[in-house]
């Protein structure tokens, strides 16, 4: 077999093996898994070709230098590769953590504000005959019926993609209950069933009684 044909065969094997590993053994949803498998196959292939090509007539000295350089570069390459994978995955996780933290802060505000406004108005009533908590809440929030969303009802998002909901769960003389949840901000527990039937997203609830607001971050 002449040298050109051999080269073509080596190239063909070198191209097909990582490609096959990437598309056949990799994961459709995780490009890092696919790339890591293809990278590992490429590394094995490089070791094989280095062992095969660096035979005599190459001197021992040339072989030792080439192998040492290969091992060093491969080690640095693997460290760099892993570092990039870790860093990018960390960045992605951090972005969602930031989102969750922002959502939790917004939810706290969105749940506390109407309830504390109601509480302040309730205790701010003059005279002895007082409106109940439920009446005060419905006077302040006429749209606040059970099952209704009271978030941004007066200033709806023009694009219509508001992903936060604050739903009234209880309205009675002595108790007002609200639950707030987000459509895609991930909570602590993936199994948690949200108010809207989805699983794993941020949710908090707050209950107002005459003793004040009881707030609980549910997920």
């Amino acid at each position: 077999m002449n040298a050109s044909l051999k080269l073509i065969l080596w190239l063909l094997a070198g191209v097909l093996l990582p490609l096959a590993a990437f598309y056949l053994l990799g994961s459709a949803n995780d490009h890092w898994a696919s790339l890591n498998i293809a990278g590992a196959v490429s590394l094995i292939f490089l070791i094989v070709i280095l062992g095969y090509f660096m035979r005599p007539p190459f001197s021992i000295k040339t072989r030792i230098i080439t192998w040492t350089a290969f091992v060093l570069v491969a080690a640095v390459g693997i460290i760099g590769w892993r570092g990039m994978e870790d860093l990018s995955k960390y960045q992605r996780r951090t972005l969602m953590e930031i989102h969750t933290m922002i959502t939790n802060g917004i939810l706290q505000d969105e749940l506390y504000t109407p309830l504390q406004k109601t509480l302040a108005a309730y205790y701010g009533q003059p005279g002895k005959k007082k409106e109940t908590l439920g009446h005060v809440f419905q006077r302040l929030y006429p749209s606040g019926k059970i099952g209704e969303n009271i978030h941004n009802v007066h200033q709806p998002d023009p694009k219509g993609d508001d992903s936060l909901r604050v739903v009234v769960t209880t309205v009675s003389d002595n108790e007002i209950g609200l639950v707030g949840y987000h459509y895609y901000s991930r909570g602590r527990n993936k199994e948690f069933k949200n108010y809207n039937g989805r699983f794993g997203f941020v949710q908090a609830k707050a209950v107002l009684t005459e003793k004040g607001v009881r707030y609980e971050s549910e997920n």
Partner: protein
Amino acid sequence: MNQKTDPNNASTSEFSPKFLRWISITTLGTLLIVLVPVHRIYPYSFNIFHNPAFQAMGLTISMGLSEFSGHIPYINPKELFTMITALVILYIVGPVLWLYSWRVLKLKKAAGTPITSIARGWSLLFIIGGAITFRTVFFELISTTSNRIVSAHLYKAQDVQRTKDRLINDLYQVSFEAYDYRILPKSLSGGNGSYEGFFLSPQQAKNDNGEILIVEARPQMITFLAVSSKNIVNTIMVSVDSIGRTSPWTYSGDYK
């Protein structure tokens, strides 16, 4: 001493017509690669010479940004194809061309084969393969070093930011509770229109994120100070007014 010229070897002179033809083709080829807007035909064409791990990193971050905006992350098959193509070109094609042509040239030299156009072809492959391989090695070393430096800074900065965000959340929580206390009458353990007498539970006063202290509690206003558990120089101060509004937040240390 007079130099002798070998008339049989005239075709290998650097100014021979063959050489000039070769250099013209190479120059035209390079100009063509640079000037023809290949990236308009295939937008990811430039990435074929980028480190595949670097491309994967960009893809992961763009997926994170996509999730942040509430979209379902999507991997474009063209991006995946470009990534694997880069891997094959940089880590397989380059080294195979270089090492194999090196071996062929070495064997020819050992056998004493005269320099022919075939040998010059192998020399060209040796140069191309070597250029790809050494370029890959160079960028590998650069990107690994810069990645280590950037990662160290980023991990530290995000750790500071994370503690800051958590303390802000904790401060919001105690601010709401303080305002609750102010609204409630004395009969329900409230402040009856004053923040005086408000106190924090041990869990609120100290947790993994840091410590929260009440700096001042007056009828119309209460001031909290949060101190980071990781560095006491990093603090956040905030006041809550008589209608429950939090004042502008004051930061110190790394939180500034």
